[in-house]
């Protein structure tokens, strides 16, 4: 199954120890490529989109309100005459930034809490886990609504609330992974050497728990996009005239039958982004699992 070839071709017998094991080529899973492609496209749109849109997102064209898709307005106009295509592209940057930042905040804090709690153990671990239980006893959207209600309805508070919602869930995953690595030999060797706790956590344990963290981050990203859109739909996240997709759907709900393109465009954008992120997460999980079995 594995062939050994000497790396330096030495003749004195040390070549066997420097031999390289030829691994079978690792296939990148299809879902990873498709998901990565979709997410990459959205990231590019988020970066350069606002500079290539034909119209600014808040420019009214009162003479052509609720116009169907045409050559002038590629995806039509909404009730105030704003170009839907430009608004969706501008909203890409807003949604991607909010969801990404919220996930990053949640994963960072969850990582810190999970690593610390899993490594230290004892009553600190118990107390932290009971606190995360309390936070997890609310459904995600309701906890986010609670935080936004306490802090006020704008984009920054929506990002903070997403971070708060995701921290306990990520902390649990990280803690379980840390517990699995708690009594491995190299960790015990580091303890015997007298390394400080933070050194052990960040240099020994963290590099070995990052595969499940990567997968968890991707999954959380898809929930984050859903949370951002839901909060904005309820009027608790982005405020008008921000081109957030959820806000667009909420505002134009009256025209669902008469001018359906107004709601279909942001809905299609939301669906494709979430599908892309989900595929990315699935592909990451497959790729990391295949990489793990190939390394062993």
């Amino acid at each position, binding site marked *: 199954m594995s062939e050994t070839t000497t790396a330096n071709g030495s003749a004195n017998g040390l070549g066997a120890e420097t031999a390289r094991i030829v691994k079978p080529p690792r296939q990148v899973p299809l879902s990873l490529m498709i998901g990565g492609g979709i997410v990459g496209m959205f990231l590019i749109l988020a970066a350069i989109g606002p500079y290539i849109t034909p119209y600014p997102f808040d420019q009214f064209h009162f003479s052509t309100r609720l116009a169907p898709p045409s050559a002038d307005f590629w995806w039509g106009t909404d009730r105030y005459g704003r170009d839907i295509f430009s608004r969706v592209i501008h909203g890409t940057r807003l949604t991607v930034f909010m969801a990404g930042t919220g996930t990053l905040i949640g994963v960072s804090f969850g990582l810190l809490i999970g690593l610390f709690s899993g490594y230290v153990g004892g009553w600190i671990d118990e107390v932290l886990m009971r606190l995360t239980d309390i936070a997890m006893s609310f459904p995600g959207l309701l906890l986010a*609504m609670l935080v*936004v*209600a306490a802090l006020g309805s704008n984009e920054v508070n929506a990002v903070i609330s997403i971070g708060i919602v995701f921290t306990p869930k990520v902390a649990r995953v990280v803690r379980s992974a840390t517990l699995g690595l708690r009594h491995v030999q190299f960790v015990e060797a580091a303890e015997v050497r007298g390394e400080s706790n933070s050194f052990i956590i960040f240099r020994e344990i963290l590099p070995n728990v990052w595969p499940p963290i990567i997968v968890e981050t991707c999954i959380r990203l898809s929930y984050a996009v859903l949370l951002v859109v839901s909060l904005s739909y309820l009027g608790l996240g982005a405020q008008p005239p921000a081109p957030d997709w959820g806000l667009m759907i909420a505002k134009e709900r009256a025209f669902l039958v008469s001018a359906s393109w107004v709601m279909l465009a942001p809905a299609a954008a939301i669906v494709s982004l979430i599908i892309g992120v989900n595929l990315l997460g699935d592909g990451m999980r497959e790729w990391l699992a295949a990489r793990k079995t190939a390394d062993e």
Partner: protein
Amino acid sequence: MIYKHALRNAMLPTVTVIAFNIGWMLGGVVLVEQVFSYPGLGSLVLFSIEQRDTPLLQASMFFVATGYCVANLVADMAYALLDPRIRYS
């Protein structure tokens, strides 16, 4: 015979997913009630947030959290029913 043996074992992760989804549904009910204009617990939560009615918000959140905990409890008890190896001492 399949129903007797395979179904009992296959239901275990299904019950877990059901409990998790009930939590997610309790969160999504807010959106659904907003879309279809049903008067319900989700609309009450939204109303209390808009009107800054903190005691009402606390009470409705308490209801929702209790419902979620009860659902999880039922799921745990279903686990004990389905799998005779799991028994609480």
